[in-house]
């Protein structure tokens, strides 16, 4: 996706080194974890993400007040003892809606990352491995959609299908997010297929599918994980944009973007309505970005000692 920082890294950054072998996998992960632990920012990021996931799970079962109930008190009321984050413009409890919004953000983030990764990985593997016309088609697809503003495409899909709801949003965003992953995996596959271990496996008669899944894919796993981690905040950001513009999830399902949109108009006399979801959004995005940075540094083979 155009605004994801990781997709700007040139493909060559992640070329596996010569000493890379399948057997070293265990120690690579251990080594990566050690390095990650030393990165304080990444740890903070992971902590915040954990809190977020917990909140999302809890909110599925309990919130201080139901997220949809209105007129709990005077509309636009600021934080009080009964309502820690105050009430919004319809008199709904902001804390409860914040928790519900966490659920939406997590579902969209993880869902998009999963779906777009699957599409991108499959297409990237096929294009990089078989080359020829498969690669030509996939590359053409990538080039066409690469040059288009993704917000426009997503807006169009959402507006044209006129369907609201999480599945459609995840689908719409994934349709633009798979590009980065496909490009990455394609580049990885293209270089990995020339390695000796692939030649060796082939000479023994290993089937293509087995090669792809058991040999090539695991060796590209590091960069794939990093890329997927960066898709999550991009997807959350996207959903916030959509909700802000009014094309997001169906009300009264809370979404941080929708809450920010509703709060913008009362900025001058009830700033808490927009500031709180905006802060939550920024914190979440920052946490994922720190985490992704940490993961990238930890998994970067060139930094291994």
């Amino acid at each position, binding site marked *: 996706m155009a605004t994801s920082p990781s997709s700007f890294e040139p493909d060559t950054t992640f070329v596996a080194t010569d000493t890379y072998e399948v057997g070293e996998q265990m120690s690579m992960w251990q080594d990566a974890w050690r390095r990650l632990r030393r990165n304080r920012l990444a740890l903070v990021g992971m902590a915040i993400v954990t809190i977020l996931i917990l909140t999302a799970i809890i909110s599925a079962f309990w919130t201080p007040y139901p997220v949809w109930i209105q007129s709990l008190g005077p509309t636009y009321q600021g934080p009080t003892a009964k309502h820690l984050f105050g009430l919004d413009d319809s008199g709904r409890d902001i804390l409860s809606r914040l928790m519900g919004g966490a659920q939406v953000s997590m579902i969209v983030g993880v869902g998009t990352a999963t779906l777009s990764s699957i599409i991108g990985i499959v297409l990237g593997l096929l294009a990089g491995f078989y080359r020829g016309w498969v690669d030509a088609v996939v590359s053409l697809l990538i080039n066409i959609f690469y040059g288009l503003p993704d*917000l426009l495409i997503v807006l169009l899909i959402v507006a044209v299908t006129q369907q609201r709801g999480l599945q459609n949003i995840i689908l719409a965003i994934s349709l633009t997010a798979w590009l980065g992953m496909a490009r990455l995996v394609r580049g990885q596959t293209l270089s990995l297929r020339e390695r000796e271990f692939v030649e060796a496996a082939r000479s023994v008669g290993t089937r293509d599918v087995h090669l792809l899944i058991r040999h090539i894919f695991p060796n590209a796993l590091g960069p794939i994980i990093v890329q997927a981690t960066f898709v999550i905040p991009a997807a959350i950001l996207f959903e916030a944009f959509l909700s802000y513009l009014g094309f997001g999830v169906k009300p009264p399902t809370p979404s941080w973007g929708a809450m920010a949109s509703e709060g913008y108009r009362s900025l001058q006399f009830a700033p808490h309505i927009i500031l709180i979801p905006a802060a939550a959004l920024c914190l979440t995005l920052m946490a994922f970005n720190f985490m992704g940075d940490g993961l990238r540094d930890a998994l970067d083979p060139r930094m291994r000692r």
Partner: protein
Amino acid sequence: MTRGTLIYIGQRLLLITLTALIVSSIVFIGVHQLPGNAFLSERSPNPSAEQVLVHHYGLDRPWPVQYVSWLTGVLHGDLGESLVNRGVKITPLVLREARVSATLGFWAMVFTITLGMSLGILAAVKQNTLLDYVASFCAVIGYSMPSFVTATFLVLLTVTGFFAWSGGLVYENIGWGKPEQIPVPAISLGLLPSAIIFRLTRASMLEVIRQDYVRTAWAKGLRSRIVIIRHALRNALIPVITILGPITTGVITGSIVIEYIFGIPGLGKEFINSIANRDYNVVIGVFTFYAILVGIANLLVDLVYPILDPRIRY
């Protein structure tokens, strides 16, 4: 301009045309399959009046015929007529609004590149100092803030803040048309991309500077430092130029939301409004325009490469 370059340009233009065609036809078809139309009103609908309008816009023809006629129009530069505001031709509308969006986008890019690159170079040269840490941290915050959040803070700061501090004398006039109305939306739009440019410039500069021969020359003294910076810059800028393409796309995308917030009469706002009003002719027209615009922007960026790196040739 070598023959190779011309061929390359030709291929890219072909790709742009293909993209625009494919994408706009998908939109066209998708939109025309939808039920209902933009012509009904709250009062007792007059089927015959509606028929007149349908006929006027040619919506009663089978859609392949409509598509061909639309395509012919596009080749002549005619994007059609608005469904909602009758009599309004889309091409002059789009061009006028594109100028507004282009102005906003231009200043946002100026801000992005200036801030992002200069800070990136500084942070790389002064790696691991306080400046580096602060700048890097701010950068992460920068690309974690959706543009509408940035816009909110800026508006809060300028409209409410300045207004209160100066006792009503300084006032951020939200809108468009005067030069003083450009900075706030441009900064809101350009902040997130500038954080990305910052990080990439810094990383890229670091890679070049870290090489041994540079370190040696560096240790030798101030004068050569400046020479080294200039030399390193050229190579360091290449990856940055790479993403200027997607950055431009991102700015174009982001301008949609920014125009919406600040009420700027540009292409993004038009797009949102026309979707909301079901003015599908305008939607298709704006989208086609965007596809072509982004394609050309990316092409221009790619043409800058050979200037920086003579090894690259088409």
